[in-house]
């Protein structure tokens, strides 16, 4: 199937509800990010790569599962860019376009112990599967 990076980047931007062009490249989002060391592409790079239409690499990157959705970047961005929303839009796009899932119901029995809250599983399925 033909994959149009620009078109996909536009879709991601619309889905995120935020305007990555407002970014002034201060790096505060990445400096705030608790998962910085885990990520191949850092929050500020998600922002600039979506602006450039360079999203194929983001869609394929493990970085999309390393974001903790803690909203530190959203809170601390001085330009109101909301990098977490963009990362989520990339993740959702990957799940939808590739039909991939990062968690299967078959994985669950091995994960569950007698303490794990329902919330952990509900949120994992919301995050990792469409």
């Amino acid at each position, binding site marked *: 199937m033909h994959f149009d990076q620009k078109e996909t980047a536009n879709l991601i931007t619309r889905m995120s*509800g935020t305007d990555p062009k407002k970014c002034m490249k201060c790096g505060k989002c990445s400096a705030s990010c608790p998962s910085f060391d885990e990520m191949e592409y850092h929050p500020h790079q998600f922002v600039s790569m979506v602006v450039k239409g360079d999203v194929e690499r983001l869609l394929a990157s493990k970085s999309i599962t390393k974001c903790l959705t803690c909203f530190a970047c959203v809170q601390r961005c001085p330009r109101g860019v909301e990098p977490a929303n963009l990362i989520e839009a990339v993740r959702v796009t990957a799940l939808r376009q590739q039909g991939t899932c990062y968690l299967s119901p078959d994985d669950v029995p091995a994960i569950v112990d007698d303490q794990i809250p*329902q919330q952990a599983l509900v949120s994992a399925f919301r995050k990792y599967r469409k």
Partner: protein
Amino acid sequence: MTYSYYPGCTLKTKAKDLDHYGRLCAEALGITLEEIEEWQCCGAVYPLAQDEIATRLSSVRTLMAARDKGQALVTLCSACHHVLTRVNNDMAGNDNIRTKANNYLQPAVPYAGETRVLHYLQMLKECVGFDELAKKVVNPLKGRKIGAYYGCMILRPAKEMAFDDPENPTIIEEFIKALGAEAVVYPMRNECCGGYVTVKDADLAKKRVAKIMHSAKDKGAEELITACPLCLYNLQANAGADAVPVTYITELLAEALGLK
């Protein structure tokens, strides 16, 4: 004072103590919590993608049920609070989401975010007041060194959650002091524990929890309290050498009020 109350799925199962003591204490303080009838799980994750409508609908139903009773809606779980607050904001301020959700649900009266959502702690502060609460304490928690663990969901993004100062929150510390204990302030109290990734990436969660526990212990906390069942689980299951015991805010309250 009577409020609508949304317990959420986890408070009916693994986090029964959070719910049970929350209700017991509210009753003792003269507050009536009326559970929303036939509520559904909120989904635990706020759908950040703007084109996701279906995943917002269960929250809209809950918000609408409170509106129909003319009551403010009280939550306890940080995640429920996050989801319901933000979906409510969408219904009030996002034309596209409001129109589609109403078209789908076809309620007798369309919903536009009229319900006021407040967290249990905000309810205590507003309805009782921490000074008054202190007077109702029968078993002051003297000498206890307790750290508040806020986590993320209840605070951020602050322009939507409007709960407390996102970088220097104080409400849980005020609560701890009202119960007669010492509130230990430590830097990592509003940093993420990695709750979401605990299912798929326990190693990453362990790194996060180790930092939080170390920070709490370093400042002298001997116990932590939280409002989030996922935080509690993650902080306990993935703690390393510096493990500090964690309980729910409502358990502490019940202890101080002599109800536990």
